[in-house]
């Protein structure tokens, strides 16, 4: 019978991504509720020493799959190895991050194992001993609770920035186990031929703890400089509405909303964004929303925790100066 919770770690260049700690921490909570063991699974090359760190976040056992073919993520290699490990160990629940990697990996793994998968979940509960996942649909215009019938493992991905990370407990340790698997290199069809690093130094919107975002009210590309200055002071990423992206002021990778990125920061500052339903859908799970807009009727104020009805070109630079007092303390 299927037993145990697995959290799949995510590494890039040998470093764990933040989402790794989120899924291990959430896995710990589910394992406690079920009275089961939490296993963290690390795929990579030369990750064994680093892997033991995950014990501090709640892993009881850590399986390390070490192979040069696993150094950089490809669905071919990762799905093949994980499917072998799952068949050998039969976990009940597998949690991955709903990062670009996890969202690519989870559905293919589920299809290979012929089991259900729920993508980009914001909450997990155990009801009558079974996993119930909550996930926004229609980009957050509704929430669905889903169950997995009798198909195990239940495969889920967790939205970044939603699940709290446990305080690391240096007193905790875990058994670190070498995974038993084989890789048929002839089956590795896709190859990562290049990784072009983003040199902006800014954190990705989906991972950002704070976002300063601009819309049509920014009027042109140059004006985004005042948002970047605020973002630099508070350590935020800079986002944009569809209007700003379609006007060519910002790259499409900055777009937040139903046809852009879905974000969930602790702080979202919307500047000159009216709050079209598609935009609200993409940032509605932000913890604190600030709206700065000169139109008091803008729908964004209905969603904002703090609203400032004024000219953003006056408010934003003044806010940048004011927050320095707190950030520099």
């Amino acid at each position, binding site marked *: 019978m299927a037993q145990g919770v697995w959290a799949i770690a995510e590494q890039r260049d040998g470093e764990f991504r933040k989402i790794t700690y989120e899924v291990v921490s959430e896995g710990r909570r589910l394992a406690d509720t079920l009275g089961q063991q939490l296993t963290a699974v690390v795929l990579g090359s030369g990750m064994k020493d680093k892997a033991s760190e995950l014990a501090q976040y709640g892993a009881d056992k850590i399986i390390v799959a070490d192979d040069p073919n696993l150094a950089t993520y490809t669905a071919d290699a990762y799905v093949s190895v994980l499917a072998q490990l799952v068949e050998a160990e039969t976990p009940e629940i597998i949690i991955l991050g709903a990062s670009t990697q996890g*969202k690519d990996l989870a559905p293919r793994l589920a299809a290979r194992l012929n089991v259900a998968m729920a993508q980009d979940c914001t909450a997990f509960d155990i009801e009558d001993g079974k996993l119930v996942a909550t996930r926004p649909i229609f980009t957050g215009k509704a929430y669905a609770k889903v169950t997995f019938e009798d198909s195990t493992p239940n495969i889920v991905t967790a939205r970044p920035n939603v699940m709290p990370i446990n305080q690391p407990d240096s007193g905790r340790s875990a058994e670190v186990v070498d995974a038993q698997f084989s890789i048929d290199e002839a089956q590795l069809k896709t*190859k990562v031929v290049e990784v072009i690093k983003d040199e902006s130094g800014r954190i990705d919107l989906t991972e950002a703890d704070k976002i300063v975002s601009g819309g049509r009210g920014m009027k042109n590309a140059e004006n985004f400089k005042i948002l970047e200055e605020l973002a630099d002071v508070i350590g935020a990423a800079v986002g944009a509405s569809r209007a700003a992206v379609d006007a060519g002021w910002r790259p499409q990778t900055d777009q937040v909303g139903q046809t*852009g990125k879905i974000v969930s920061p602790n702080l979202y500052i919307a500047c000159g964004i009216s709050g079209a339903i598609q935009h609200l859908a993409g940032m509605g799970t932000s913890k604190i929303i600030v709206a700065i807009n000169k139109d008091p009727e803008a729908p964004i104020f209905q969603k904002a925790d703090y609203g400032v009805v004024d000219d953003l070109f*006056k408010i934003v630079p003044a*806010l940048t100066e*004011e927050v320095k007092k707190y950030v520099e303390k």
Partner: protein
Amino acid sequence: MNIIACVKQVPDTETQIRIAPDGKSIVTEGIKWVVNPYDEFGIEEALKTKEKFGGQVTVIGVGPKRVTEALRTALAMGADKAIFINDEGEGEKDSLTVARALAAVIKDMDYDIIFTGQRGIDDDMAMINVALAEFLGIPHVTLAIKLEWADDQKSVKVHRPVEGATMVVEAPLPAVITCQKGLNEPRYASLPGIMKAKKKPMDTKTLADLGIEVTNKLQVIQLSPPPERKAGKIIEGETPEQKAAELARLLHEEAKVI
């Protein structure tokens, strides 16, 4: 080159979603149904690929009869033929079931590449496309914003943005490529295109024809509206400087985010 684009029909992005009395589905009355916006990038890339290398574009969709409208739109954009998998009356189907239906049709076709949207903006699951690749036994690359074709057209390099970087992934064909904004600018259906589309072939198959049983492993047990956000505070002040100071203070002292 034989090019396939998969088409999903979804509620327009303007749609206000209302929950049906059963608590498990949405009210479909009054919804304007459109081609999934991400699939438009897939259709456009299929058409561009045909323009570059010749061949034909087949669009495939699964759903009730209204889905033929989405397929006609794709034909009007320039696709050559459509295959409609009619599941009228079969109710909700999970992603695995839909992917199996698509795979059942595609496996017997001669094809070089399959384009899809990176996700449907209805269930946001991003699964059908990848599961389709798995069932066909071919590779997939998600989130394409740029394609570089090999001279022999036997492989393609796909640029896919990930957190903080862009991965360039080379995939041998056939493969499933999932598309997003930035890859291209989807064309509009022209009036002559719409007229021509009416005469283009559309094959219809049923799930039964394909031997597909609806076996929903993922069950929706409850839909709810998004959590209400409590009414916020409008920051008062005589001058922009005063408002900014008060906002900064509240973000620091009350919200504790700065």
